[in-house]
């Protein structure tokens, strides 16, 4: 009985608190608060920092031109180290410091964990990299948008390439048991089985960070697979291809966006030659992409990293929406995002009902002479 009494008291206290804090939240400041969330430290920082750099470049440019409708844009950057349980803290921190739109998060798991918090606060979130199907397909997050194609588009791209382009039938699917690789691999398996054109001879998960993958490579060999479709990140992929070469196993390796990273070529070296990877569609012919790259070079004296273009595009699109809508209310922003096409480094982008970018897809790349080139 005692508990219910104190519970009532507490909830009253909470409501009072809410009433007190509510005006503070809705009071529009003289800046537009732009949140950036992603891994900015730790071992996955290389996935998150380029996005932060992209947003800064775009925003600095806009601010130098007087901001949006006279308001300057203020960046609030928070680290989530790609961990779901930390991402909820990160999101709470951003929401409670009054951000109006958020660029992020980077990793799918962290994004899924953080989304309910933004959803409750009615904040627009746009990720350059989170590919989990759940984010858009489940319909749970009307405030979520992204400038990268979802897994649901990536697995078929990989499988179609292996079957139709390379002409293989026997497919071994390997994944890293992670929240990115496993759904991708499962999607690939389902797609192969549905298409009926190929056969999955092996479906296995490996432990990321394990010392050595000889046993799984032997198993791939034993299965008689002609091609390996791998879902996961580049460290495991480079270990597998290097051991495959050591074991003189001549099987093609088709992988995903997590492997389409220059670090993979650096680490795997000669073993990387001939590895295929799906990646965000080739934008090298897009003048805006070239310009974005130049800006990065001028500002940081280095080539941009992963998801840079997507983040650049997301920032441009969001700022444009704020400008056109004249507010940061979710409904207004959504209307602009879904109706208006904006030229960005990833192409002319608008969004569908679910929040996926229209006209953003995957291209297949292959490693040739130490570089990823588009497969024609």
């Amino acid at each position, binding site marked *: 009985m005692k508990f219910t009494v104190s519970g009532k008291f507490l909830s009253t206290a*909470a409501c009072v*608190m*809410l009433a007190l804090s509510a005006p503070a939240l809705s009071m529009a400041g003289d800046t537009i608060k732009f949140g950036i969330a992603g891994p900015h430290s730790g071992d996955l920082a290389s996935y998150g920092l380029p996005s932060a750099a992209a947003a800064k470049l775009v925003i600095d440019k806009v601010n130098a031109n007087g901001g949006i409708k006279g308001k300057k844009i203020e960046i609030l950057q928070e680290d989530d180290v790609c961990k779901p349980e930390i991402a909820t803290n990160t999101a709470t921190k951003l929401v409670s410091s009054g951000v109006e739109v958020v660029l992020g998060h980077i990793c799918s798991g962290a994004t899924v*964990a953080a989304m309910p918090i933004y959803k*409750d606060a009615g904040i627009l979130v746009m990720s350059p990299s989170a590919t989990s199907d759940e984010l858009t397909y489940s319909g749970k997050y009307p405030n979520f948008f992204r400038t990268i194609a979802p897994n649901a588009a990536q697995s078929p791209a990989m499988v179609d390439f292996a079957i139709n382009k390379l002409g293989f039938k026997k497919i071994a699917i390997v994944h890293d048991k992670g*929240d990115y690789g*496993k759904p991708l691999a499962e999607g690939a398996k389902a797609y192969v089985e549905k298409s009926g054109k190929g056969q999955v001879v092996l479906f296995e*998960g490996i432990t990321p960070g394990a010392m050595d993958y000889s046993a799984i490579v032997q198993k791939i060999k034993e299965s008689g697979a002609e091609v390996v479709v791998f879902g996961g990140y580049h460290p495991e992929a480079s270990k597998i291809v290097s051991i495959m070469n050591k074991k003189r196993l001549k099987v093609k390796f088709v992988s995903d966006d997590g492997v389409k990273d220059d670090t993979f070529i650096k680490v795997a070296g000669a073993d990387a030659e001939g590895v295929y990877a799906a990646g965000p569609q080739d934008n090298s012919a897009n003048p805006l992409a070239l310009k974005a790259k130049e800006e990065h070079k001028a500002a940081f004296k280095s080539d941009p990293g992963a998801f840079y273009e997507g983040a650049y595009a997301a920032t441009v699109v969001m700022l444009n929406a704020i400008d056109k809508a004249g507010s940061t209310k979710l409904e207004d922003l959504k209307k602009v995002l879904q109706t208006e096409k904006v030229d960005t480094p990833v192409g002319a982008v608008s969004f569908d009902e679910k929040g996926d970018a229209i006209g953003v897809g995957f291209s297949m790349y292959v490693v040739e002479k130490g570089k990823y080139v588009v497969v024609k």
Partner: protein
Amino acid sequence: MAVFKELKKGALISLWFVFLTFPVMVIKVDPIARTVAWRWEKALYMAAGTFIVYFLVQFFMKKKATRQETNTDKEQHLSIIHRILQDPIQRNILLGVIAVAALLFPQFLSAYQTNVMTTALMYVVLGLGLNIVVGLAGLLDLGFVAFYAVGAYTYALLNLHFGLGFWTVLPIGGLLAATFGILLGFPVLRLRGDYLAIVTLGFGEIIRLVLENWGEFSRGPSGISNISRPGFFGIDFDLQASIIYTYYLMVLLVIFTIFVVNRLQDSRLGRAWIALREDEIACQAMGIDKRKTKLVAFSLGAFWAGIVGVMFAAKTTFVNPASFTFLESAIILSIVVLGGMGSIVGVLFGALILILMPEYLRALSQYRMLVFGVILVCMMVFRPQGLFPTIRRTYTFKKKPHTPCTDDQTANS
């Protein structure tokens, strides 16, 4: 002369560290561009840094030594917290201040701060649970996070499939975790010390791997999202309110746990645990059922972990296996040892320090975990018994025979 000798020693030690850190600090190679950068200035920093740190350490050691010489009075050795707790008036004042602070905390600080504090409080309860197993019963458990995972997934799955609410699942999660505690307890009854440690570690890993691989059951690494937050008689809170509500729930849970653990400690069972920790054989000889005592310790410890697991799932609204790694067990264990094994006050402070520190060390950004590691080592080196070690119960025989015994005075600590 002594100063010169000290200086020489300091110089030698810094030289040693320069040598030690030479390849990692000074040389930076780029294997792709095939270039080598020699960062000699880092060796210089290293030398200077080590030299200063060495003398700081020497200074503190000296101070500690002289302090120990001057006050030999036993009472003085008690930490200030324990002294306050022993005096009923001071204790009530302290508790009052803490209660007010805890109550007003979310009113004055942002939702983010409240959220961080809720996390810290969750670790307080986890620490208190593990404290039963490690601190009281002396069974080294490196897989405690498994029970936490059981609790979290119990809620996540029951909520997902059957739409069960937080309050219904709270006891179920705790009981299920306790059952797992017994399941783990049976095979390891015979094991001692470090063998027990590795088996519990293995158990923790097995639970995590099963959750990761058995996708049909647990949705695998993608985890389960959109778990309902704790409800309150059908009222739906918005984010801000529900963070505060969760915080208050957690405060209540902490108070409840402290109350129960404190009573347990003084119970027959608690004394049996302590006897078990001190000497298994003597304990058996006293007629204590070793099997039962150990199993109860495992299951009661696991019970709290299960409860907090449910809280965790409800708070973050998302669970996936990546949250339940060995590192988590290591942190909970660190809380118990850092605070002082078997000490409730210790666990309280250990959790607050260890969980809040990395949050507030965010200012140090990338140096955060480095500093965390250093602090962990330093705390152990300078205070190996923990921050607030338990006071051993002592029974003092008074000279005058007619004075009634004052045992219950100390028992309250």
